[in-house]
């Protein structure tokens, strides 16, 4: 966990509302693991006041990449930054995906919705290095959301795509695409997912039905990102006990079976 007050932007790419920034930040890049995130200060003034969390999309040497969608004031300011500028960041933060044990031959299904695809690139690469067989399921509202298709493809992870409006790939939810495939011939050993809550919940149910584990990367508004504010909690089961646990510290990745969704707990 480090603070780098001047992580310089060495590369920037944009597709519509989606943007990718490469940051040179040796200490943080070296420590990063898939599923972890960084907190970025988007303004030095008091608005936006708080840092914003972004998953680590990829790491190479002293550089780290974030991939984000412009959805509000902080991400808009970030989308206006340019090569050569420096960002004030904290990281790497949180506990990422579980890469312990022997993963050789593991059938890994990675499910990403919209900007939720961000951490799965890093994860896919690490899983492959460890001998796992990786498939990417990539969903969005429409074709314009699937901007990382080619990046995944040229890294050797040609994704199975879906769009809700049918403009590209499977017409429907990405989770329905995964379900369809598992009904046909695909038998994953483990699911990994990042995206909106509804999607995560569906992935958890699918994993439960298939009796396989699923790891979900949760989102929440974060006050600090390093466990100090207790603002980012989600209800999590642990040792049989349900409690509000900090996503930034114990997560953002949790086992689906431990995640209690609203409604379940009331």
């Amino acid at each position: 966990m480090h603070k780098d007050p001047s992580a310089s932007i060495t590369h920037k790419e944009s597709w519509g509302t989606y943007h990718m920034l490469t940051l040179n930040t040796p200490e943080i890049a070296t420590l990063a693991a898939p599923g972890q995130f960084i907190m970025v200060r988007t303004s030095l003034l008091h608005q936006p006041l708080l840092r914003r969390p972004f998953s680590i999309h990829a790491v190479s040497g002293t550089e780290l990449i974030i991939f984000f969608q412009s959805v509000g004031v902080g991400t808009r300011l970030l989308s206006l930054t340019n090569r050569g500028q420096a960002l004030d960041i904290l990281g790497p933060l949180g506990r990422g995906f579980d890469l312990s044990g022997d993963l050789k031959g593991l059938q890994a299904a990675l499910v990403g919705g919209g900007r939720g695809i961000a951490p799965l690139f890093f994860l896919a690469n690490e899983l492959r290095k460890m001998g796992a067989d990786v498939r990417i399921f990539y969903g969005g509202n429409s074709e314009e959301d699937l901007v990382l298709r080619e990046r995944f493809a040229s890294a050797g992870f040609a994704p199975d795509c879906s769009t809700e409006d049918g403009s590209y790939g499977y017409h429907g939810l990405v989770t329905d695409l995964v379900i369809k495939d598992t009904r046909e011939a695909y038998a994953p050993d483990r699911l990994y997912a990042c995206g909106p809550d509804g999607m995560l919940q569906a992935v958890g149910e699918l994993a439960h039905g298939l009796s396989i584990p699923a790891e979900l990367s949760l989102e929440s508004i974060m006050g600090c990102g390093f466990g100090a504010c207790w603002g980012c909690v989600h209800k999590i089961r642990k040792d049989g006990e349900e409690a509000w646990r900090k996503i930034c510290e114990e997560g953002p990745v949790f086992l689906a079976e431990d995640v209690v969704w609203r409604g379940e707990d009331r």
Partner: protein
Amino acid sequence: MTDLSVDLGFCVLKNPVIAASGTFGYGLEFQPFLDLNLLGGFVVKGLYYDPRPGNPPPRLFETAGGLINAIGLQGIGVERFAEEVLPKLQGLEAAVIINVCGDHEEEYAMVVDHLNGLEGITAYELNISCPNVKQGGRCPAMDPDATFRIVKEVKKISRRPLITKLTPNAVDITGVAVSAQEAGSDALSLVNTFLALAVDAESRRPALANVLGGLSGPAIKPLALRMVYQVAARVSIPVIGMGGITSGTDAAEFLIAGASAVQVGTANFVDPQATLNIISELEDYGRRHNIEKITELIGTLKI
């Protein structure tokens, strides 16, 4: 080089910068970012006798220059604190202050009683002013009489100096301040967060699950500064000022308005090294203005 130390009467701080309760975890969370010994002190997260589950999320909402929170004082309770946290806070040069909470007078006394026998605590800060827990944000510090009773009760059994933390939502904060002083409080700290509401116009729901929350951060600084100024003019015990402090200049403003030390809250989230920056900016300020001792600033507002 300006001498930054301040004497609160019951303890000397190496500098007037204290991390505020609820924004600095149990201190340990900040060790990756700073050496706790460099701080004047820090106040740990509000502690009830028993563990508390806290409020359901969403617990945070950002506003223009501010943050609304309704954490609901989630915490591990005094026993686990004594076993798991306090041993790690021994031997620090910084003052370690415990933010004491309670649902009723007895609970405050129970917390203090439990902590009285333990080492490594500089003072208690009585948090009679958290607006989140009770319905509609009411709390003892909204009323001078309730404040007097609680402070008196706790002071009786406390083996340590007592700081009473005041709420800006009080009927009359100076009245409450005077009550706390009369009941024997050794110092006052103010302000806690301002009762606030955020509405999500899309869903027509409150932005926080708890409906109401407490506003902190730069947005409240002008209001906090006014209250510190008014309270410091009315009491003789030291006042610890806070509310939206993010820079050394902000800290100097609170000292000038009458505070003997300051606390830094929300700024710790924005920058885990905020307290250190504030300390070094205060040093710069002292140097630029040829101030020998930072205490020379206290209460010097020229009207």
